[in-house]
């Protein structure tokens, strides 16, 4: 038995069997249970464990060989596996509690399997091909076959497919250059190709137009699940590239480019969010803004940037999940809501509205939210070396905060009493309890964020 078979092949096979179950509810519960089991297995299974195994410990090999290529999951990767399957289970639970027919149940397990396969394949240039399969199979998980609007989905498919040739060609250039590339000209060519590939993958300006469109065309519970996982895996792949190629992490222009693109994305995202009228598209712009912040963190280059990145991705996963669930909950009242109808929502869905506002505040780094400590640290690092970047970053977050204040102003203008809030607490216990944990976590953020530090424990050269 080997680790890739357990966490990549089995989930994919199980998801096909789950498709045979007609009852949506049972299928949903099984999805949660199985995801949870795969997460818990990371505790009991030791990969390539040399010593004696305990009573509840199972030892497995790390390598699965397919057609001469290896899929390798090491002990260090277990935190990523745990995080991904916990993410699956929590999103499955959210979809059931919010009474949503999530399209990612049950094939989300297979999607997860493909993403893990992309992270584990060696040589890792093949990850581009596996990611492409994951992208294609994510499309039926996002939209109904009879969807009236498909422009965003078409663009998503086009741009993600365009990335594949660039990454494959970059891989071919880099094949002989794990330590040093043959010459400086080859280095420029490889970086250019790699950069173009990642620009398409991460929807970086000017290839970002599909993000708000796709978010507008799909239910937030589906788009959130698909894109949060995809974005996390893309960043893990970027780190993997930086970790593997010594010359890449010693090439200052690369990190400069990451910071530059990051700041553009953060700026574009926040401006789009400020002026957006559709709530679904607003999440899309927030997604772009998050990508920008993560890129800036990775662009800090040194070990501090990578550790900070883990905190940022941790806080963003939590905040963005809450944001998507809240919007999905609004939409049980009306599809594709406008920000103009926001004040009416406070009467019908007060907890969801509070969660929506708090998660936006967290994503903008407001104090006493989980997003504050990592963003504040990022400002601190940037202020020391790149004052211009920190100014744009703060301005972009001010725009998001102003958007939240606009919402609050709208609520206060139309509502004089909040007594219905207490009645709603009972009805929305799930989101309410998550909101309380979310607020409390803002006081003790390190207890949660430190868990995400293990995500990069395998990248020895980066976190030294």
């Amino acid at each position: 038995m080997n680790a890739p078979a357990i966490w990549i092949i089995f989930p994919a096979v199980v998801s096909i069997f789950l498709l045979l179950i007609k009852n949506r509810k049972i299928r949903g519960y099984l999805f949660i249970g199985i995801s949870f089991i795969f997460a818990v297995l990371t505790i009991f299974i030791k990969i390539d464990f040399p010593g004696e195994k305990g009573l509840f410990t199972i030892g497995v090999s790390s390598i699965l060989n397919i057609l001469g290529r290896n899929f390798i999951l090491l002990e260090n990767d277990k935190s990523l596996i745990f995080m991904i399957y916990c993410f699956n289970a929590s999103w499955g639970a959210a979809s059931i509690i919010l009474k949503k027919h999530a399209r990612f149940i049950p094939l989300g397990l297979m999607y997860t399997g493909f993403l893990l396969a992309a992270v584990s394949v060696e040589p890792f240039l093949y990850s581009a091909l596996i990611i492409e399969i994951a992208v294609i199979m994510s499309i039926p998980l996002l939209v109904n076959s009879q969807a009236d609007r498909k422009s965003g989905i078409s663009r998503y498919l086009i741009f993600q497919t365009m990335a594949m040739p660039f990454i494959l060609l970059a891989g071919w250039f880099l094949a002989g250059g794990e330590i040093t590339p043959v010459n400086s000209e080859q280095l420029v060519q490889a970086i250019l190709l790699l950069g173009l590939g990642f620009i398409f993958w991460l929807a970086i300006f000017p290839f970002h137009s599909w993000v708000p469109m796709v978010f507008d065309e799909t239910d937030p519970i589906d788009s959130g699940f698909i894109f949060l996982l995809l974005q996390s895996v893309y960043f893990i792949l970027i780190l993997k590239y930086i970790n593997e190629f010594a010359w890449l992490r010693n090439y200052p222009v690369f990190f400069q480019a990451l910071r530059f693109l990051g700041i553009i994305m953060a700026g574009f995202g926040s401006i789009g969010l400020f002026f957006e009228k559709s709530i679904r598209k607003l999440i899309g712009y927030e997604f772009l803004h998050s990508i920008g912040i993560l890129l800036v963190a990775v662009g800090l280059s040194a070990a501090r940037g990578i550790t900070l990145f883990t905190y940022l991705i941790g806080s963003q996963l939590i905040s963005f999940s809450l944001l998507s669930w809240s919007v999905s909950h609004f939409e049980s009242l009306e599809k594709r809501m406008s920000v103009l109808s926001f004040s009416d929502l406070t009467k019908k869905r007060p907890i969801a509205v509070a969660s929506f506002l708090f998660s936006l505040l967290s994503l903008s780094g407001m104090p006493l939210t989980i997003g504050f400590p990592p963003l504040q640290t990022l400002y601190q690092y940037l202020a020391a070396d790149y004052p211009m970047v920190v100014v744009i970053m703060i301005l972009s977050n001010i725009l998001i905060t102003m958007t939240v204040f606009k919402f609050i102003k709208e609520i206060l203008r139309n509502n004089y009493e909040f007594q219905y809030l207490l009645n709603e607490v009972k009805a929305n216990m799930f989101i309410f309890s998550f909101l309380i944990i979310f607020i409390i976590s803002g006081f003790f953020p390190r207890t949660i964020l430190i868990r995400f530090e293990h995500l990069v424990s395998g990248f020895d050269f980066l976190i030294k």
Partner: protein
Amino acid sequence: MFLNNLLIFSALAAVGLMLVASDWRMRIAGLASLYLVGFIVIIQIWPVALASVKLISGWMGIALLSTSMINSMNQVNSHRFTSEAVFRFLMAVLVWIVVVAIAPSINEWLPIPYTNLYIGVSLMGSGLLFMSLTDDFIEIVLGLLTILAGFDIIYSSLEGSALVTGIYAFIIILICSLNGYFSSVVSDRKVE
């Protein structure tokens, strides 16, 4: 030399047909010819068994596309004005001329035979043009397949790997199935 010129001419003719024709059958026939040209180009570098995987997967994809188009209510047979056809063709010619100009520079980066490079880059450029002139999903799929066929010719000239060939074939079939998914008559929501 003659074979190389013939291959270039055939590839451009096939992609030209795809761009100009208004009947979906003609466009799909153009794509099928592209896969055949690609196969003949790749067979000069790779063993027949591996090269034929490309042809078979491409034609399987075309069979899927055709089946979904026949079953679809919305068969893309929109009438095209002569001016539109001329415009599309001239745009394609422009792309091919640009490729003639830039191919030698790209050839310095990618040390592969000029014929393979020219056909590959021309197909990628034409596919991009094809996709940019429409918002119809079937045409986007055809454009994507053209781009992928072009890239396949370039990448196969650089590296031969059984796993890449297998996954690539799988991707082609998945993209074609996606068209089937979107052109299905009955909504999956209604079924459930």
